[in-house]
């Protein structure tokens, strides 16, 4: 089964650290020296109990303040599957770090406190998960032990969430009643909630099907690097290396190269593990082509009858991430999209999205740190792209501040509004 990358989003108060600690502990992925270390630190600080957040809050500043500031990655495996956890901060001032952690995961877990139900933070996190196109969402209604394992409370929260989520683009949402502290429905089934017939969290994580999340239809191969060995044994070798962004490429396929529009045939596929007959989304391969065309980094290989859009006029949702400088329409930024580097100007902020209540605020002339808005952009050269919802790889980009080098914004390309 494919490795699962998932994000946990929330703050310490939601029981996020307890949940991760429980997953790691019950799957025997916490090592003795790590446990000894956090026990010693907790004891020295005079805590009443072992603070499991110390497992993932690895920075000095996080330990001092008792909050998660940046994403931490943790790894564990069961006999069925290997997992990568991106443990994300929940506070609004660290939204950009949450987006970093959640941008390339298969699944996100959002924690809801059973006592308080759906709160502003739940809505904000779910919106970001929806915007980022994370294919699977799990709403863990935590602390069920504190509401008497009451089915009605769980159903209420579920209804409340579904009303809000109907305005989002969430593809697959699962609701689980759990108690991370007591261990109910995390790794082992709960004896306290006979009314719940769904899986445990771990069972769900082990079995969630992700192979169909990648776009296997539309062939997209951004050329990353041209391999030309200056070696006597390979006088004529010329390979185009990159990572398949969409579709399945096969030896013998006719392909088109953009921007030139010239066509040729795939004569061979090399991979880090040797020659192949085909290449699938996500795989790093080298294509050999029948004709000696001029192809460089930043070019896009596709099928002649299935091309990405090509344009210098773009529309996108933009998440602003630079705390030093807000978005200035008209200012020139570097734009990195697949393997292509260009320059871009934002023409107009169409609206700013209020990430707590989904209201569209018009008449804004910029975006500050952690703000999200729909914008139009103009680039120096055409980009070859797809709608973000069709293909996350060819639909995303970053803006870089040319003076400071900071990653200023993350963008998701969308079809223009008609």
């Amino acid at each position: 089964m494919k490795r699962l990358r998932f994000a946990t989003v929330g703050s310490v108060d939601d029981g996020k650290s307890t949940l991760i600690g429980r997953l790691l502990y019950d799957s025997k992925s916490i090592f003795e020296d790590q446990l000894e270390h956090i026990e010693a630190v907790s004891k020295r600080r005079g805590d009443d109990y072992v603070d499991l957040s110390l497992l993932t809050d690895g920075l000095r500043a996080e330990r001092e303040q008792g909050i998660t500031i940046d994403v931490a990655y943790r790894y564990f495996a069961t006999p069925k599957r290997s997992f990568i956890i991106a443990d994300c901060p929940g506070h609004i001032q660290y939204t950009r770090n949450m987006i970093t952690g959640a941008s390339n995961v298969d699944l996100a877990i959002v924690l809801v406190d059973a006592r308080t139900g759906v709160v502003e933070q739940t809505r904000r996190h779910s919106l970001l998960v929806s915007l980022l196109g994370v294919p699977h969402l799990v709403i863990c209604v935590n602390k069920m032990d504190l509401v008497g394992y009451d089915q009605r409370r769980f159903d209420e929260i579920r209804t409340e969430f579904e009303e809000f989520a109907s305005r989002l683009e969430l593809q697959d949402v699962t609701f689980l009643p759990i108690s991370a502290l007591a261990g109910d429905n995390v790794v082992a089934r709960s004896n306290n909630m006979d009314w719940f017939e769904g899986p445990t969290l771990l069972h769900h994580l082990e079995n969630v099907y992700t192979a169909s999340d990648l776009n296997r239809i539309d062939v997209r191969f951004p050329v990353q690097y041209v391999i030309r060995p200056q070696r006597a044994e390979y006088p004529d070798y010329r390979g185009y290396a990159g990572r398949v962004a969409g579709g399945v490429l096969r030896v013998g396929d006719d392909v088109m190269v953009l921007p030139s529009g010239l066509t040729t045939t795939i004569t061979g596929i090399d991979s880090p593990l040797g020659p192949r007959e085909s290449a699938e989304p996500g795989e790093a391969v080298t294509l050999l082509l029948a004709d000696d065309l001029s192809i460089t980094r930043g070019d896009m290989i596709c099928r002649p009858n299935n091309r990405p859009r090509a344009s210098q006029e773009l529309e996108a949702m933009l998440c602003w991430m630079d705390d030093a400088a807000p978005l200035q329409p008209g200012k020139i930024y570097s734009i990195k999209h697949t393997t292509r580097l260009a320059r871009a100007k934002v023409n107009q902020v169409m609206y700013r999205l209020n990430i707590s209540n989904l209201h569209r605020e018009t008449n804004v002339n910029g975006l500050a740190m952690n703000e999200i808005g729909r914008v139009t952009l103009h680039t120096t050269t055409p980009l070859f792209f797809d709608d973000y919802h069709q293909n996350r790889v060819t639909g995303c980009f970053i803006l870089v501040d040319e003076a400071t080098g900071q990653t200023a914004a993350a963008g998701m390309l969308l079809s223009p509004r008609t």
Partner: protein
Amino acid sequence: MKSALGELIDESVTIIREVAAEFERPVLLFSGGKDSVVMLHLAARAFAPARIPFPVMHIDTGHNFPEVIEFRDRCVAEMGVQLIVGSVQASIDAGKVADATGPRASRNTLQTVTLLDSIAEHRFDAVFGGARRDEERARAKERVYSHRDSFGQWDPKNQRPELWGIYNGRHKPDEHFRVFPLSNWTELDIWTFIAEFKIDLPTIYYAHKRPVFKRDNMWMAITEFLRADDGAPVQEMMVRFRTVGDATCTAAIESSASTVADILAETAVSRVTERGATRADDRMSEAGMEDRKRTGYF
């Protein structure tokens, strides 16, 4: 051929190619340790049949296990890559750092000065490191492309966002990036790769007999750089090294695992992290690694 490690290999190879495409002067840190060996093999596969388009560099404390230095030289010769050695001894001789003294002296932290000087001397703008996020809690927080300012410093509170698979390597002329292609590999993944592709390693990774003494509950090897502490009895024991670093601060573990299969079995059931079991340097403080990384350490 398909591998269980396929997705990790694809990710690492993509990162290595991206750096080769975007930076002017990359270099790969190569100590002869298992992670850097795997990284070097991945680099070779990333550009095959062409050669690796950048040199490798070793920061040599002068206190390394001779088996590892012998392996290092043989490995780079077979791979056909250029080896640059940054010498901590030379930094000491030039008066840039003072050699550590006392019974527990280690040159481990002195390496930072030699590393930063070597990066500046060769004007390297991207430095590949074999660090993994599962090793240590500060590393668990670090980006794949990790920015270093003109002092070589890491600023963990102000890391650039890193989204999707898009990496931002923009920097000023005297700044550089540390790049970690193995970020998402675990110790078990590394050994799985070594087994699957029959990768050669320094002999000290496998169980062998050697004189050791006990210090802080860890087995330290007697070498020309390290004598037993006063009163500590020296014993011949079957040991192996789980990590390979400076001989004065890297401990051995008691083990009879003499083949890759034995080590895979041992690693799968291990209850202690590799650094917890073997590194005196990480036991110094709650944030030992973070503090060293801030000043430019690996």
